[in-house]
């Protein structure tokens, strides 16, 4: 094994065909170049990178005006009925109850558009909603209580997303957990609706403790798994037309044995109260407060949060009865949060929605890029699919990871590069470049700040790059990085010489791809 580091190798060999020499380094590389160097030291931008799917100029000026703490308070209660109405207009099946889907799709054929409506609505809301923290939490809970949209022929996830997750994303954890338990989607996904006396199925019991509440390694045993499976048995999901997918308790299918669960003796009996007792024990268990606090810390602060950061969340969770906004407020105002600048890496949904936000594509532009006949042709959907992050399609119950080591790989990065190219070279975007005033109508204040208008205003290669970098990142890059981009944009022409719009926008497409691929954009 060579002792040369990757950094030395890169410096020594220069531009092309470096890989042949850079192979000696097989050691795990410490993050010697601190992430803060990429993230800068702007705490307002830091806040926006974490509480939204990506900063925009408009939101940044709002944080500057209100201050971070007041901005957090405002964002915690922000909801966006306008974007909701747009989402429903574009993707109407997201409002459809599963009973209607069952009756109208021939019990499960022709449900592909239901799935794509749900997926595209998620992308649309992530990019467009003013209620960014709400959408971030909807995303968080959908991952935490992961289900799989193609698990049943008639997809149950539309109701789950709408009536369970979105309805409870900013309430208390107990209400949310109970709603999840009563959902046909989770009952089916983790096979609990098939767990009956004499044929007990442990799947939901195990994941309920391991993934939803206590956390793996928190001290429960295999006996607890089997006891919980008994307590949760006898719940059924309706299979006939009316009411389809209704969740109900059938005492005759419940295993009534007396059990000891997490040290509690639970008397024999065939009642649904036994499941509620188990859920209450789990909600009130200190391991749950700690587990949920840690997971929120991992989402908002760091993959490896300090014990003190977790304990801030845990205390807020316990004192507020698991009130989610209270926990978020405590974490986002903590010192640990401010200290964590630059320590996270964007997941594909952060990259895709963040690109749309950074490029100031507005609702109208997005509608132009969306084809209702071929909904999967949506470039944003395609990017997530190829990056391994198709919405609502993570098969296993752990949900997609929020870990840099998972998402920072060449396959995912290439899928995202293909998306950057689509965005910067698409028809809709091309029209914006040539006529920014006419199609950015609903963008309001964003008109003068958007990437498209920034490039359209530029007359020289230098101006085009300066405008693009400022619009996409809301800050500057190191001089050496700017020189790389100038050279790409100008292609040998003098930097300050006027160029025609077509030449400028062609170069700008490449610059946009390079900037968005770079670690300066990927840092969260």
């Amino acid at each position, binding site marked *: 094994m060579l002792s040369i580091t990757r950094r030395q190798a890169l410096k020594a060999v220069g531009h092309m065909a470096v890989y042949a020499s850079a192979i000696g380094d097989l050691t795990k590389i410490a993050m010697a170049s601190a992430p803060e160097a990429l993230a800068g030291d702007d705490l307002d931008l830091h806040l926006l990178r974490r509480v939204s799917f990506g900063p925009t100029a408009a939101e940044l000026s709002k944080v500057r005006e209100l201050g971070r703490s007041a901005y957090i308070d405002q964002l915690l209660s922000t909801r966006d009925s306008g974007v909701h109405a747009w989402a429903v207009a574009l993707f109407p099946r997201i409002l459809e109850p599963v009973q209607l889907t069952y009756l109208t799709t021939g019990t499960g054929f022709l449900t592909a558009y239901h799935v794509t409506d749900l997926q595209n609505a998620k992308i649309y809301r992530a990019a467009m909603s003013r209620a960014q923290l709400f959408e971030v939490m909807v995303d968080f809970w959908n991952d935490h209580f992961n289900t799989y949209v193609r698990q049943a022929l008639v997809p149950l996830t539309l109701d789950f997303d709408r009536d369970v997750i979105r309805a409870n994303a900013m309430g208390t954890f107990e209400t949310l957990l109970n709603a999840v338990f009563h959902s046909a989607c989770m009952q089916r996904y983790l096979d609990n609706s098939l767990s009956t006396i004499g044929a007990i199925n442990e799947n939901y019991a195990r994941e309920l403790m*391991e993934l939803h509440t206590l956390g793996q390694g928190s001290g429960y045993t295999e006996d607890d*798994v089997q006891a919980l499976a008994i307590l949760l048995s006898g719940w059924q999901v309706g299979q006939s037309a009316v009411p389809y997918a209704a969740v109900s308790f059938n005492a005759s299918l419940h295993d009534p044995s007396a059990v000891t669960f997490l040290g509690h003796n639970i008397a024999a009996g065939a009642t649904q109260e036994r499941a509620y007792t188990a859920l209450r024990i789990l909600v009130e268990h200190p391991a749950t407060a700690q587990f949920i606090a840690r997971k929120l810390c991992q989402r908002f602060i760091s993959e490896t949060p300090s014990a003190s950061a977790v304990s801030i969340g845990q205390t807020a969770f316990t004192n507020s009865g698991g009130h989610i906004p209270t926990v978020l407020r405590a974490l986002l105002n903590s010192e640990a949060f401010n200290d964590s600048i630059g320590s996270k890496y964007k997941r594909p949904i952060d990259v895709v929605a963040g690109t749309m936000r950074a490029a100031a594509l507005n609702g109208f532009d997005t509608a132009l890029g969306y084809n209702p006949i071929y909904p999967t042709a949506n470039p944003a959907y395609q990017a997530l699919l190829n990056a391994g992050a198709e919405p609502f399609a993570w098969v296993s119950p752990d949900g997609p990871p929020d870990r840099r080591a998972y998402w920072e790989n060449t396959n995912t990065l290439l899928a995202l590069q293909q998306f950057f190219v689509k965005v910067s070279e698409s028809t809709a975007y091309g029209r914006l470049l040539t006529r920014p005033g006419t199609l950015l109508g609903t963008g309001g204040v964003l008109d003068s700040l958007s990437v498209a208008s920034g490039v359209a205003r530029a007359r020289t290669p230098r101006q085009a790059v300066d405008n693009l970098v400022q619009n996409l990142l809301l800050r500057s890059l190191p001089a050496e990085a700017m020189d790389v981009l100038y050279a790409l944009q100008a292609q040998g022409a003098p930097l300050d010489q006027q160029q025609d719009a077509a030449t400028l926008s062609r170069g700008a497409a490449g610059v946009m791809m390079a900037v968005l691929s770079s670690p300066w954009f990927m840092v969260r």
Partner: protein
Amino acid sequence: MLSRRALLTLSSGAAAAGISAKSAASQATHTLVVVFQRFAADWLNLLVPAGDPAYGPARPNLAVNTPIPLDSFFGLHPQLAPLKPAYDAGDLAFIAATGWISPELIDRSHFYAQQIMEAGSAPASDGGWLTRFVQQDAAFPSGLWSALAAERSVPNSLQGTSHAIAVADFNRYQHFSVMGDAATNAARDLGVLAEENGQTLVTLCDSLVDAKQNGYGAPTDATYPATRLGGGLQVAAQAIKRGLAPRVITVTSDDDWDTHVNQAARHERSLPSFAQALASFYDDLGDHLNDVTVVTMTEFGRRVRESAGGTDHGTASSMMVMSRRIAGAQVYGTWPGLASDQLWRGQDLRPTTDYRTVLSEILSQHMGLADASLEGVFQSPLVAREHWLSFTL
């Protein structure tokens, strides 16, 4: 004429005596392909212990009653028929009742078990067992594609290598920018400027240039099922056949293994594509299989007794090895039995061979790793030669 199988049986004796048929030179260019069957495949219904009297009674509805006979005891699930030609040719072997020894060190959580299986140590350490192999491998080649994740991301077993590359599909391996290579080069330069934070971008840009120049997206000689395993094995075959010199390749099989319910029907659907993906790879590789070893693993097996039309999480499973360098057409290992008093904790198949013992024999005999390095990879005394099953040639 002496059959290939008879020859292999003879030479397996030679291998057992420690006389490896494989030269040091070919060990240095051998490729290891690791297939991970994620979410616990029920190997009791794949490699069926038909001769065990307790098998049928434990699975009144799920037992595979007419398996394809492999030997006097084991049979193959009928939907795995595409694997039979490779088995008959002596290029495929099974190792029954594999898992963690001692089994109390893992639990029945998919995620925890996958983590420590991929780490190769319990509790999970930093980096995976393949990472440590790559670090200790004197013959590790100096190429872009040496550590190839033929899947959407780099799995835990390979994490910590600074230049592992993930390729899910060679056929669209370009970004399509109107600025072409100029954009690639600029992105690469930004990656270099970002130092350690930019290394994935640099690797990607280098590989884009390399793939474009050398046409890696060209079609292969077999048709693969449109599954993650099929796609991954196709990428693996493209890399091997086009001379990219991959040393280790990881592939994910997500062929619906977590069969808590409705297992029989789900196996009817998923087993044919699982088997066909491997059979296509076998056909596609041809003589390249002299220099390739495929090994499968899964995080644990499933419960011996069926429940609710399926099987809950269990303990031991089985492994499969495909290569020309094995004494194939055999089932290796020690069968612990399925009678109640033979089960682990009264419920599960007991592991009798540690999966690291199997991998160690491959790392040593096929990949040429020095014995002294084996414990460095797995941190277990079970890697020693005395535990090997001598399935390698």
